[in-house]
């Protein structure tokens, strides 16, 4: 088979698997800090129980993120040597800063955060939590900066076919970077809120009414309810930014074949790229013009302006719709749950049942969104600078196919094991309830004041 398409699938598989875990750790670090600070302020041991339940999820997710991240750093060289040869002068430093400023920080203090509660003072333990949470966020900052630069490159010049940086500030804070960073950080927040909500709902369904379950559940539900409207607004702003800088991506997202005013919003369709039309279309008249131009007669860019230079329409169109659809579902579920928790101080069973599958809704939306934006950049690897087809390495297709097959099997098994452990941890916590042993009580000689008791 064609090494290009195989390498693309392989990279897509690796990075899709990888992003699942940073999407959790970026925000979970801050949630853990919240638990820790609440414990520091109130001395209520239920907060510390919630902390110790979720720090295990954090550790596992972090390990999955590290190992799949190591894979990514090798992939550039093994499959895409043309990438670093052309834009290595830009991409290299951004990746280097990620490792130097974030990766080491997380890795070193994670040990203290996980295993150090009895070995360091409470203040240092809180500080370790701050540093790990900060590290994951700084990590996201550099990676998003690089990805955004590939979408909307700025601050460089081409000399002999190689990119050279002119202005690092412009490189890092390129036009789409602030929007993408905010969008991704909020996405991580939502992923974690629904993860916590879903697994807490599972504990609830198994009869767990412990304080630590309620505290985690409320944290998850209220965080989600607050973040989702902000995310919808931020996503809209991000879309307008894309309209200004990558109109062909917008045209594909909307499956709009001709540049026109009064463009309808397509709710459902099967885009047919050969015939340049949509089948089984369901539309809202003037919708796209209203959303994108805030006027019914606004002109929306169409694919006819970019012959041979626009992304494949079908995956971009559907990726976007899956993301938005999941977002709307998140809005409904989190606001309903917030209403019941706030006003009725209870959780109806059907709602809890709905929340359990929503555990992975953040993953679905995050992946769909990344597919939209990354496939939406094609045929370019770096917009206007380097085409994907020109960056692929000389590795034979059979090698790529073999390794791809093994990666896919491995990832599938690991994903099953990961989700299995999450459910196992939740059910174990449900069984132990508030009777789960608290660290610091077991080994009195070394311990801090037994956590709040």
């Amino acid at each position, binding site marked *: 088979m064609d090494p290009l398409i195989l390498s693309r699938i392989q990279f897509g598989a690796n990075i899709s698997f990888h992003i699942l875990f940073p999407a959790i750790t970026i925000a979970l670090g801050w949630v853990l800090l919240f638990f820790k600070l609440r414990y520091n302020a109130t001395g209520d041991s239920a907060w510390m129980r919630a902390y110790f339940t979720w720090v295990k999820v954090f550790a596992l997710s972090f390990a999955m993120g590290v190992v799949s991240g190591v894979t990514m750093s090798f992939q550039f060289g093994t499959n895409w040597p043309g990438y670093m040869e052309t834009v290595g002068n830009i991409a290299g430093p951004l990746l280097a800063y990620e490792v130097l400023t974030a990766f*080491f920080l997380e890795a*070193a203090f994670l040990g203290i955060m996980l295993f150090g509660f009895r070995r360091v003072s409470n203040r240092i333990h809180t500080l370790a939590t701050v540093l790990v949470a900060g590290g994951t966020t700084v990590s996201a900052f550099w990676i998003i900066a690089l990805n955004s630069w590939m979408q909307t490159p700025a601050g460089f010049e081409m000399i002999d076919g190689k990119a050279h940086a002119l202005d690092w500030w412009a490189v890092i804070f390129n036009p789409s970077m602030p929007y993408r960073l905010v969008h991704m950080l909020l996405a991580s927040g939502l992923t974690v809120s629904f993860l916590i909500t879903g697994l807490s709902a599972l504990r609830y369904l198994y009869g767990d009414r412990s304080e630590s379950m309620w505290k985690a559940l409320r944290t998850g539900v209220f965080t989600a309810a607050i973040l989702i409207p902000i995310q919808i607004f931020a996503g809209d702003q991000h879309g307008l930014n894309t309209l200004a800088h990558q109109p062909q991506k917008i045209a594909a997202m909307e499956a709009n074949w001709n540049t026109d005013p009064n463009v309808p919003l397509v709710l459902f369709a099967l885009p047919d790229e050969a015939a340049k039309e949509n089948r089984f279309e369901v539309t809202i008249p003037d919708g796209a013009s209203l959303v994108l131009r805030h006027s019914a007669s606004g002109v929306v860019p169409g694919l006819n302006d970019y012959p041979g230079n626009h992304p494949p329409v079908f995956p971009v169109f559907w990726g976007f719709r899956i993301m938005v659809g999941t977002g709307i579902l998140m809005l409904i579920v989190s606001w309903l749950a917030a209403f019941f928790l706030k006003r009725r101080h209870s959780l109806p069973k059907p709602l809890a049942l709905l929340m359990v599958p929503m555990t992975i809704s953040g993953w679905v939306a995050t992946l769909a969104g990344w597919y939209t934006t990354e496939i939406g950049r094609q045929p370019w690897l770096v917009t206007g600078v380097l085409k994907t087809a020109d960056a692929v390495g000389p590795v034979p297709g059979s090698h790529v196919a073999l390794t791809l097959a093994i990666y896919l099997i491995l990832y599938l098994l690991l994903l099953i094991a990961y989700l299995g452990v999450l459910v196992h941890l939740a059910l174990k916590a449900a069984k132990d309830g508030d009777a789960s042993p608290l660290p610091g009580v077991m080994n009195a000689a070394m311990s801090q004041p037994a956590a709040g008791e």
Partner: protein
Amino acid sequence: MTFDWPTALPLIFAGLMGLAILIYVILDGFDLGIGILFAASADSEQDTMIAAIGPFWDANETWLVLAVGLLLVAFPMAHGTILSALYLPVFVLLVGLILRGVAFDFRAKVPAGKKQRWNRIFFIGSATASLAQGYMLGVYVLGLDVGLGGMAFGALVALCLSAAYAAMGSAWLIYKTEGDLQRKAVRWLRTTLVLTALGMVAVSLATPLASPRIFDKWFLWPEILYLSPLPIVSALLFLWLWRQTFHLPKPDDRHSILPFLTLAAIFALGFAGLAWSFYPYVVPDRLTIWQAASAPESLAFILVGTVVVLPIIIFYSFYAYRVFGGKATDLTYD
């Protein structure tokens, strides 16, 4: 020679990359080694062995990311050439690292009945990753030769490097444990030392024989005089450590970290020898560090950050090691 940045920067980065690789080999060496020793240990000892590396392994592996990152960032041409040539061994290495990395966490969190399976995966992953690293080292010193002879040599180095990692793991266990496990670790150290020494001799002989250029760097007068301390000191350290294994552990467990430090010193000496052999090439006999280097303005931008951040990283790494100093007990999440 006058000092100019375009000449100095690639040199500085080659040094930094070398440092990152050396630190990686020593630090991840002992935790990979403990994974290999899982095959020889009893179930009851495995929790303690994990506890001896649990808080550190994440940070240890980060040095590999830094080393590959520096190769990628500072020498993008070499990154592509080396990694495409080593496509399959790199893949095997990655699968090994993935398996052992996740096994660390899974073994502690799955229901008790499934723990054995993850212990086995931890061993398999550690062994695979070590073998792949050794194989790549072997192929690299022969100038990325992947003929039949190169593969056979790669296999030999793979075995010896794994033994060397197991020796590091044993030395770390001598430092971090006590009682039966510690005595067992002493015996492991003695066995694995033999293969370690064999591997170092094999690499030291093969490197100059495979390349006339490297041969001349070592065996011409007066270089041979200046360089002779390298093999002599290594050999003496080996002999001293070998004798020590008959007297360990010492009363009151004095100097229990010495075997580990001695091995680290041997690794450092071997590494210095390799660095001398290959300088100034980053891809043996094909690309020098200057031909493969990134643009000076990019290197300068990274250097600023590195100079500020690297000492901080080393400082807090030491701090983390100090927090978890002393003998390992059962690791608990607290």
